[in-house]
């Protein structure tokens, strides 16, 4: 009686010991040549990728009998999304064919061998000509090959509530010309409207992840003339005046009570709460955020806010002292990339092309509140009429900056978030936090790969 279960157990144990080699090719669910798996982020207010991929699955399967488009939405914040996709990529069985991927992680995932170059497909694709060349920088890795197609880009700036500005007697449209003017307006708002309104929201600290680093810190740093990476010497910059000044700005707004209370700012959901609740309720006067936040307010959003075009204004972020070119911005954007372990990359590329069609790209640009990278979409009346700030946000592409998207960047970014958090909690002065950052960077990249800033 007991022998059969024992034998089963022995086989199971042996299989577990031998691991992937024993289970091998026969049992790989993701390795059916007629199945294309797509992994993408479906989190918080961002629903556009899910809507798009569901549409693609339905259409593509209807047009191609026998083909399955398997969707793997991941409901997790961006950092956990990356970790999960990386874990999937480490397994031959789980590695997806198409990956919705933040462009700043492309280089490190190329180094890890997770992505396959798509140059040969790109050259033969007749719609490739519609793609803006400036977006190429984000998808061409250091080895010179193309690893993805941008599905949209973005810029960042100062969203402000015109009603609160009128209430405080501040002249409209608001066009601040230096950090001091931004801080001055925030202080005036605090004086005039009082405690119910947060004058200035700037994301900071580790719970907000990359948003704190990019929308918060680097929107400041890029206006100081200093940077994170020196392209000329190809080294990471430590000890720059701009870095410490940017931390000082963070220190000022959090210690003077101009920003959100640190305990609200250090909530991982602060972005969703701000954009879905605090801003529509008129509780935040100015928010330094991305061009896409209108996706929280449009008709297809979770909580539509049809009055937003009459309430919200958008001003470019000024440089520190108003030095040329006067304003600054940061851009990123997500891409579709091809997994290197795909058993049928030709089919995966067909699905990618379908996803990137003009019709789908237009829908994604509207629902995801993206700045399109396809020229024909950017110029289409359909796109322009939906988003009243589309032109202002797109104009910032001229002064925008990109992150140094090298392999070490994500860890550098986390070091920035930790420096910001230490400052906002009062655990360190801006100078101390900047020095701690310098040490961390030196540790991360090695002392040969750092250079002292001005």
């Amino acid at each position: 009686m007991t022998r059969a279960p024992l034998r089963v157990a022995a086989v199971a144990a042996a299989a577990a010991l031998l691991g992937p080699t024993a289970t091998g090719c026969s049992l790989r669910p993701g390795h059916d040549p007629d199945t294309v798996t797509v992994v993408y982020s479906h989190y918080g207010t961002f629903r556009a990728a899910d809507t798009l991929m569901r549409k693609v699955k339905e259409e593509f399967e209807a047009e191609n009998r026998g083909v399955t488009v398997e969707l793997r939405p991941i409901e997790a914040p961006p950092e956990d999304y990356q970790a999960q996709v990386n874990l999937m990529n480490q397994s031959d069985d789980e590695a997806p064919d198409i990956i919705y991927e933040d462009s700043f992680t492309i280089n490190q995932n190329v180094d890890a061998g997770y992505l396959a170059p798509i140059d040969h497909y790109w050259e033969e694709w007749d719609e490739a000509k519609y793609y803006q060349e400036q977006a190429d920088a984000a998808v061409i890795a250091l080895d010179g090959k193309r690893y993805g197609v941008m599905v949209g880009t973005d810029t960042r700036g100062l969203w402000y509530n015109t009603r609160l500005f009128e209430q405080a007697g501040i002249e409209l449209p608001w066009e601040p010309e230096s950090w001091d003017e931004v801080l001055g307006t925030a202080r005036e708002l605090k004086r005039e409207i009082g405690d119910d309104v947060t004058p200035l929201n700037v994301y900071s600290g580790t719970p907000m992840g990359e948003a704190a680093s990019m929308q918060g810190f680097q929107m400041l740093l890029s206006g100081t003339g200093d940077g994170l990476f020196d392209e000329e010497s190809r080294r990471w910059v430590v000890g720059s005046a701009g870095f410490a000044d940017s931390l000082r700005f963070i220190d000022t707004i959090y210690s003077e009570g101009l920003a959100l209370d640190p305990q609200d700012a250090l909530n991982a959901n602060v972005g969703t709460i701000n954009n879905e609740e605090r801003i529509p309720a008129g509780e935040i006067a100015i928010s330094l955020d991305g061009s896409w936040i209108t996706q929280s307010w449009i008709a297809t959003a979770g909580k539509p806010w049809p009055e937003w075009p009459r309430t919200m204004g958008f001003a470019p972020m000024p440089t520190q002292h108003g030095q040329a070119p006067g304003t600054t911005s940061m851009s990123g954007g997500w891409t579709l990339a091809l997994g290197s372990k795909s058993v049928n990359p030709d089919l995966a590329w067909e699905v990618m092309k379908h996803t990137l069609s003009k019709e789908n790209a237009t829908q994604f640009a509207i629902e995801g509140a993206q700045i399109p990278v396809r020229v024909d979409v950017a110029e289409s009346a359909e796109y322009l009429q939906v988003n009243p700030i589309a032109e202002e946000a797109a104009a910032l592409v001229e002064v925008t900056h990109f992150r140094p998207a090298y392999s070490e960047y994500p860890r550098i970014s986390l070091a920035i978030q930790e420096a910001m958090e230490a400052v906002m909690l009062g655990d360190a002065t801006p100078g101390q936090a900047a020095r701690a950052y310098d040490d961390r960077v030196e540790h991360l990249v090695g002392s040969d790969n750092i250079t002292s800033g001005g």
Partner: protein
Amino acid sequence: MLPLVPALLLLLSFFAGPILWTVWASLTNAALTGSAAAHTEFVGTANFQRLLADPAFFNSALLTVVFLVASGVVGQTVLGLVLALLMQNRGAAVRMAVGGVVVGAWVVPEVVAGFVWVAFLEREGTLNGLLEAVGAPTQNWLYTAPLLAVVLANVWKGTAFSMMSYSAGLAEIPTDLKEAARADGAGPVQVVWHVVLPLLRRTVATTLLLVTLQTVQVFTLIYVMTAGGPGDRSMTLPLLMYREALRFGELGYGTTVALALLVIAGSLSALYVRALRPEEVR
């Protein structure tokens, strides 16, 4: 002998396997992404040297010990023993009621327990509602006292285990010994101190051991409640391990932190076993 082979294989693959993998990984630069993911290299003791120079590690090790002592040793085992003693010789209804409440907390999944405590301690939470009602100042406990918050939650969640374990131990103590002590004029406290506790030593040692092993690896509860923050004020070793291995993607260094955790838990366990070893029966 032969029937033992499957069990041995299972043990090897599911227990020894992961530990060996951890030891191996801690000697490499294994990573989730970047070139180290494609070409993992043997780096010798580099991860251990880095660990010993990392202030974040010492902070986390200290927090882990505080969390363990406060929520595991003092909180769960003392409260569990007191509850077990109080429940002795009580009516079935009382035992059912108290046991039901305590065990109820124990069987709740950790994620749910985390959210329950968030709802209780957050700024608009139940605790602040009660404090407001009596005119006391309110605060966001998860932000102002993160370690205390997770300690309380873990005591609430884990006490049932030691309570049940002590109840079983107490039932084994012969009543005539206690009666003899009472006949000699001992009060209730003296009976517990001189008779019950010495006879309970073996149970205390086992319970402490199990509670310790369970407490040092608490992750979900803390992650849900504070995620290790604010700053790194509730970043115990399991959370540090998660941050290094999955947020930073440094699997090699993350597993080194895991090994350090194993060493700390192991040495504490050895300490209890020695200190509470029952005297030899003559």
